[in-house]
Every structure is written in C-alpha cells, then in structure tokens.
C-alpha cells in the first residue's frame, strides 16, 4: 500500500547513476526504492528492440569510463557486465581512409602512409594523454570540496590534491594546462599535420558539447574521453554485450541482490518537502512514498526546477541552476540493416567495421557542421561516430542482419521553428546522405530507421534540451562548480535531498561515478 512502507532512501530515476547509488546504499544495508518513469530501466543507457529482432543501444552506445572499483564493489561481471573491445577507429575519406587499430605497429604503418612525422608523434601522444588522464584521475575520484566555506575534510581533500599535483612532471603540467584552456584543434595542431587524423581526434573534444573543434575548452572534453580505462588500459573503449542497457540491468540486478526495490512506470511528480526537508515523493498517479532521504538521478534542471518548488530553494542557487548550460547538440540515428555497409574507400567486410567509424574527414567538416548549428539548423553534413554493434555481438540482430548506431552532431535543441516530424525526417535524410557519400549501398540496406532529435531525447529520456551529459563539460561547469558552487558535493540546499546524476561531479558518460560518490557521501553523513 502506498505510504505504508517507509524507505531509508528513494532514488528518482532508474538511469545507471541512480541505480548505482541505490546499489551502494543497499549494499550498506539501507532500504532503498528506485522509481523509474519509463517501462524500462537504464535512462540513456538502455537497450530496446525498436524493430522486431533488432536491438538498439538507443542513446548511449559505448562504455569506457565505467569505474573499475564500481564494477568490483557491485560485482557487475556476475550480474552481466561484459565489455567487448572496440578495436579500431576508421575514418573514411572520399578517396582514401585512415584506420587506427589496437596494434601499435599496424597503426604506425597506417598513419605513416599519410605522414611519417604524425606516425611517430602518435606513438608519444597516446601514452602522454594516458599519463595526464591518470594525473587528473584523483580529481575525478574526489568528492568536490566546498571552496567557499570549506570544512576540515574539504581542506584535507584540497591538500591531498595539491600534494598530488606536486608529483606531476613539468611536461605533464604543461600539457594539462593546455588541455584545460585550448581548443582541441589548436592543441592537436601542435602535434600533428595530417588533417583527417587531427579531425578524428578532435572529434572527441566536441561530443556532447555545443562547441566546434576550434572553440577554446574543447580540448578538455577530449581529455575526458581519454580518461577511459578498461582493464587498466587507458583510452580503450568497450561495447557492452547486449547493448548499454545491459550495463544498467547489471547494476539493477546488483541493487536488487543487495535488497533494493525497483519500480518502473512510476513517474515522480514532486519531492515532498516539509520545513525545508525532503521527506518523500509523490508520484504522478497520486501515490506517496515516505523516506528519510530523496536522491535525484535527474539532470540539475529537472532536479531543482521541476521536482521541487523554487520557493524551497535560495534564489542565488536557482539562478545558478537556470544559468547551468545544458544545450543539446546531438541526435542519434539507429538503423536496422539487411547487410553491412560497403565503404567505397575500403570495400567489403573487415576489421574496420569492428570499431568506431568516424565521419570526420577534416576540421572544416566539423567546424562547418557546427556553423549550421550556431545559426539554428542541423548540420547538413554532420559529424558522426558510428558503430555496428551486431558485428561485435551477433545477438543484437537476426543472423546475417545488422544494427548501426550513429551518434550525430550537430542537431541543436533550439532549431529554427522548433523540431517537428518533417524536420526529424529531414535530419535523418541528412545523416543517411552523409553516410552514403562514403558507403553508397547504405540506402539499399535500411530495413528500419529510428531518428532521435534533441527534442526526442528530452521527451523520451528526460534529458533536458537533449544534452547527453546532463550539462556541458565546460570548465565553468566542472568539479566544485558542477552543478553549482557550494552544492557540488551531492548535497542540495534542501535538507535530505541529494543529487547523483551526470550533472554532478565528475560528469557524463557511463561511469557510475556520480552515483557511487553520491552514495558514499550520503553514507558518510548517515554515520
């Protein structure tokens, strides 16, 4: 009966971070309830059979940043976490291609085909970025201190980080500073000369942001993508068997194993706040659940501007949240295919279809795509990060058939005249036409096409403005500023109301990190 059972904690949103927080709290013996609005768990890390027999990782499609300790502590391999290697990055060009694989010799030879100098620089670049990723890692793993009114533990945390930074070499420090401030294009220009190589690498600096490769700050996003770590190897991307939804399901099974209750089709209307304290939640159907604390896995806009009343919050905080930049810039096109795409520059089946396919022939391609978006249009020739999940995991499609996942940028949320069905299809057509430029057979093998605009990402998955990271990963929105100064440690101005989504430190991607650290913070307060 609603209202009868009282929980220690209620988590709003069954996305992977909400589930991670729930699993950690349950593991500590707390009675936890997770409430998910949709019929299916996972939030943006979800697998759905959109077309009969074809499974799509509908939104989020690769895994890299999932924290090893989260995997271990929540026993995720036992509950179905299986990460397959994405072994290459293939950049098709009009008359040539660039194929980088996991093998250093092969990659050296391939880059040398285009630039001997770059091939050599590339062998230094990866390890250096890995070392810098490692240097930054302690920040990602520290609960952000309150810089305004630091507590004793905040001070000791800050000291620890400062001590850590003293151990960096001057080279590391130099590059770290550059990465924090420069554009990815400028940064890469210092290293490489072959345009398709630079553009493909710069592309990871624009994913999920409303920036172009020449926008300052994009280098940091590139670094964020370098901090991935699978099996200790930095910069290794993985594909979850069964799609990213299987990651969420593994976390959900872990949470249930530790005793959490999980409800789907249970949309929360409001957090119940009494005397400045969260005491439970009210569902849209009127049911109420009481709990000692409430944790929101939603993005900051929803957590503070929808789930609670502005009047319950300090006005400066409301201003901060309103100013929090969450501009959606990307869409997703998922295709059910009758066969494999055949690239003109590298025909047939092969290793190049087993990794990422990056539509990033040049800086100008990316920058022009961004220009379209700046002025309120979707990119006529977008940047794309494509994978073929069924090549890695045949169970994703019927035998002999395939699924193709295309992450597409840019598609601005604020498109001129607003998104509608016609625009969605036009956007889908632009995507297909761009792929067809490199793989002309694509148009003949499409059995079904799912086009998701930022507006769809918002309405279906609750991502405000369709932003895949719950807020951009720009410098002013990181660490002690994410989502707002003083409230970057998972607490909120409302007592017993916490946040654990990607809009908190250390940000987006399938990391489990915000969920884990929020739970650890809460458990610290509880004890």
């Amino acid at each position, binding site marked *: 009966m609603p209202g009868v059972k009282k929980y220690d904690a209620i988590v709003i949103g069954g996305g992977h971070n909400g589930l991670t927080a729930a699993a950690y709290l349950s593991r500590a013996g707390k009675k936890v309830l997770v409430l998910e609005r949709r019929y299916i768990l996972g939030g943006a890390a979800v697998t759905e059979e959109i077309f009969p027999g074809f499974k799509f990782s509908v939104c989020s499609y690769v895994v890299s940043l999932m924290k090893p300790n989260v995997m271990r502590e929540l026993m995720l391999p036992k509950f179905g976490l299986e*990460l397959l290697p994405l072994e290459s990055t293939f950049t098709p060009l009009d008359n040539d291609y660039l194929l980088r694989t996991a093998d250093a010799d092969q990659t050296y030879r391939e880059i040398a085909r285009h630039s001997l100098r770059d091939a050599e620089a590339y062998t230094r670049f990866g390890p250096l970025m890995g070392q810098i990723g490692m240097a930054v890692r302690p920040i990602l793993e520290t609960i952000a201190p309150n810089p305004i009114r630091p507590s004793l533990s905040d001070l000791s945390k800050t000291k620890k980080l400062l001590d850590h930074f003293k151990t960096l070499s001057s080279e590391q420090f130099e590059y770290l500073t550059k990465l924090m401030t420069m554009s990815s294009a400028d940064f890469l220009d210092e290293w490489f000369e072959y345009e398709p190589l630079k553009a493909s690498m710069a592309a990871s600096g624009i994913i999920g942001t409303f920036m172009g490769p020449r926008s300052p700050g994009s280098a940091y996003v590139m670094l964020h993508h370098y901090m991935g770590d699978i099996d200790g190897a930095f910069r290794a991307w993985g594909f979850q068997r069964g799609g990213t939804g299987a990651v969420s399901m593994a976390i959900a099974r872990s949470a249930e194993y530790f005793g959490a209750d999980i409800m789907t089709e249970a949309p929360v209307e409001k957090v119940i706040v009494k005397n400045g304290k969260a005491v439970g939640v009210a569902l849209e159907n009127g049911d109420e659940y009481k709990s000692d604390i409430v944790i929101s896995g939603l993005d900051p806009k929803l957590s503070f501007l929808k789930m609670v009343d502005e009047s319950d919050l300090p006005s400066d905080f409301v201003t901060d949240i309103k100013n929090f930049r969450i501009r959606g810039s990307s869409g997703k096109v998922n295709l059910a295919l009758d066969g494999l795409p055949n690239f003109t520059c590298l025909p047939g089946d092969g290793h190049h279809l087993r990794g990422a396919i990056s539509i990033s022939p040049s800086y100008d391609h990316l920058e022009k795509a961004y220009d379209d978006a700046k002025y309120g249009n979707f990119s006529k020739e977008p940047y794309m990060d494509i994978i073929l999940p069924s090549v890695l995991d045949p169970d994703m499609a019927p035998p002999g058939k395939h699924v193709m996942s295309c992450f597409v940028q840019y598609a601005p949320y604020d498109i001129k005249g607003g998104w509608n069905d016609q625009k969605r299809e036009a956007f889908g057509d632009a995507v297909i036409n761009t792929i067809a430029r490199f793989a002309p057979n694509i148009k003949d093998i499409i059995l079904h096409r799912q086009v998701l605009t930022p507006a769809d990402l918002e309405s279906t998955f609750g991502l405000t403005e369709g932003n895949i990271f719950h807020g951009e990963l720009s410098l002013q929105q990181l660490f002690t500023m994410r989502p707002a100064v003083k409230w970057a440690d998972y607490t909120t101005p409302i007592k017993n109301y916490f946040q654990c989504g990607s809009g908190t430190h250390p940000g987006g991607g399938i990391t489990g990190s915000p969920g884990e650290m929020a739970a650890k913070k809460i458990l610290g307060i509880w004890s």
Partner: protein
Amino acid sequence: MSYENQFTAHTQLKLSPFFKRTSKLNESQEWRRWSGFLAATNYELHHENEYFAIRTKAALLDITPLKKYIIEGPDSQRFLNRLVTRNISICKVGQVMYTPWCDEEGKVIDDGTVQRLSENKFRITSAEPNLNWIQHNATGMDLTVRDDSVSTAALALQGPNSRDILNEVASDSLDSLKFFWMMDTTFGDISVSISRTGYTGDLGYEIWMDPKDAIAVWDLLLDKGKSFGITPTGLQALDIARIEAGLILLDVDYVSSRHALIESRKSSPYELGLGWAVKMKKKDFIGKAALEAEVVRGPEWDFVGIEIQWHELEKHFRKAGLAPGLPSTAWRTSTPLYKGSKQVGYATSGAWSPILKRYIALAHVKSEYADEGSELMFELKVEHYRKLTPAKVVKTPFFDPERKRSCLA
C-alpha cells in the same frame, strides 16, 4: 642454396589437415609448437577478439595436435578402469569422462578425456604421448591399442553460439546433447562425432572427424557460422579461458611423473585439485595403494585458484606513477606466494580475466594455507622492483556460466 621454396614447415614440423586454411587466416603469422604441430598463437595481431569469441560468440580452434588413442576389445573397459582414476565401468556408451592417470606411486602422468565410443571401444586423449604407458599396462589383456593422433582430426567450437552453429550444420539437433556426452551425426554426407567437451569452461563442443574431411568441415563451419560470429581462435585466447575455467595444463601447472627429474616435481591428483576424480571405491587402479596412504596422512599440497587483490595492486603501480600493469596475455612463470616471510606456494599460470575484471591465477599452495579465503602475498615486479601484494584463495572455476551445462531439450 635455393630460395625458391615456398614457406612450409612440412619438413620440420607436422601440419594439421586444417593448415591449408589456418595458414591463410593467420594474419599475425604467430605460431606455437603443440605436440610437434604448428598451432596458431593468434590469428589476428591481438588475441582479444578471439578471447571474446570464446565468451560471447563462437571460437573455432584446431585441436588436432591432441594425442588420441583407440582402445578396443573385450577387456577395454576393465583395462581403462585400471589405468585411470575415474570409474570407467559406469561410463555409458556415448559418455565422456575427464580423468587423470597415475603411476604406481600415485603421481599424475597425464590427464585427458575418455570417450566410450561403443561397448568395447574407447578413445582416450592426452597432452603427451602415452602409447608406451598404455601398452605396457595392457599386457595380457584382450584388446588392441592404436595411436589415433593422426588418423582423427579435431576441432573445438566453443562459446555461447556454438550450439546454434552446429544446429545449422548438423543433420541432428544438438539441443539435448548433455555436458560430457557425445553423438555421431553428419554434416551433409560427412560423418563426424561431436562431444560436448572443451577446454574453455563455456558452452562448447569438440568435433572429431576423418582428416580427409577436415577442409570441408572447416569451410562449412566458417560459412554457416559467420552470422553467429564464428572466429578462428588461437592458443593465446584459449590459455586465458582455460585459466578462468580453472583447468590445468601439463608442463605448465604440473610435470608428468614420467618426466619429473626430481621427486618434488611430481604431484598426486589430490595435489592438483583432482581429488574428486579419484574413485577409491574401485577395486583396483594404478596408484591406488599410494593414494590411500596419502589420504590417510593428508596431501602435502593443494592446487587452488587465487585472486590478486586489485586495490593494493593498483597502489603499487600508482606509487611508481603508472597505471596498473596488467598482463595482456596469460603468463606461465612460476611466481612465489608467501605467508608472512615464509614461502608457502607458487602460482604456475595466471591472467587478467577480461570477463570477470579480476586478476586470477592457479597455484600450488601448502595444504594448511590453502583454505578458501586464505590470505597470501603474491610476488609482483613493479618497475624492476619486487613487491608483495595480497592475494586470496578463491573457488575455481573462476568463471562458470550456467550455459556450460544447461540443455535446451
């Protein structure tokens, strides 16, 4: 001197009947020796994809180099029951049993599978040549022993999609074939036997055939298996999988008592974690008396799985300013294990398990330190310096999916 010769190892090493295909597919051209055969180390430049084929798709391995013997005749059951430690008298026609066999001192000579092909006909597989030992012990019995190593070719098809592929190819359904049973069937007009066995601890099969059909079978499997992700797989991937499955390897995890130069290199089945395969209720078998005595005094050693603890491992590397250095392939270097300052064992093979996200190893440990949960220190080298890092004794198999044993019908 002529440089006209095409690349062939024919004059030096034996080539499997699948070599015509495997040699063309082996992009890395990395080969190992396996019983005098050339066997693919990995087909691609990295074994990663092949490893994941075993665990998530289907891996195809040429296992022809296995030693195989046919034992046939009225006394064959009685003989095998005396030769090995398992109870062969309860092995039904179509059943397969994994077993070690020992010398009179109860020390293990080799391990392999016994297949009962008919009432009076068995096939036994082994890692090393055993013909001499088998014949020697069969003296006076009404049976024949024939070396079947070259007269039968074999493939292993391992992984969750292996059954689906065989169902596409075989004229009979594999759905009701149970773990460690076998059946005869045909692929078109080719006769094969399929046993539900393998060295990966996953759903998997081994296909036994006449070498003249080898190429046809290979082509058929690759063709029909393509949409199920069939992947030619080498020994490097297999080595990780077999460690995850907790399966021992002769000359890596133990030494055959027939080749051990010193007593301390020999192991009893109990000392290899194979106590379950010793059937003391049998009237007699080679090594029984010695093993009975060992049971009474208690085996000196145990063979266990250990897990190297992540947190401390990571710390060692962090201190050196490095990301955790994990082995990308399985290692086979004997590595000391300590309790306090005393060495109480050694790990013989280990690997980072990509599917479990755990660093695991197989180890010989003095019995008193071998209980599950026992905490030991594992020797590790970080930037040229030796460190000790905690490792815990854990249950094997490390990886044991339900699909390994489950049946569809």
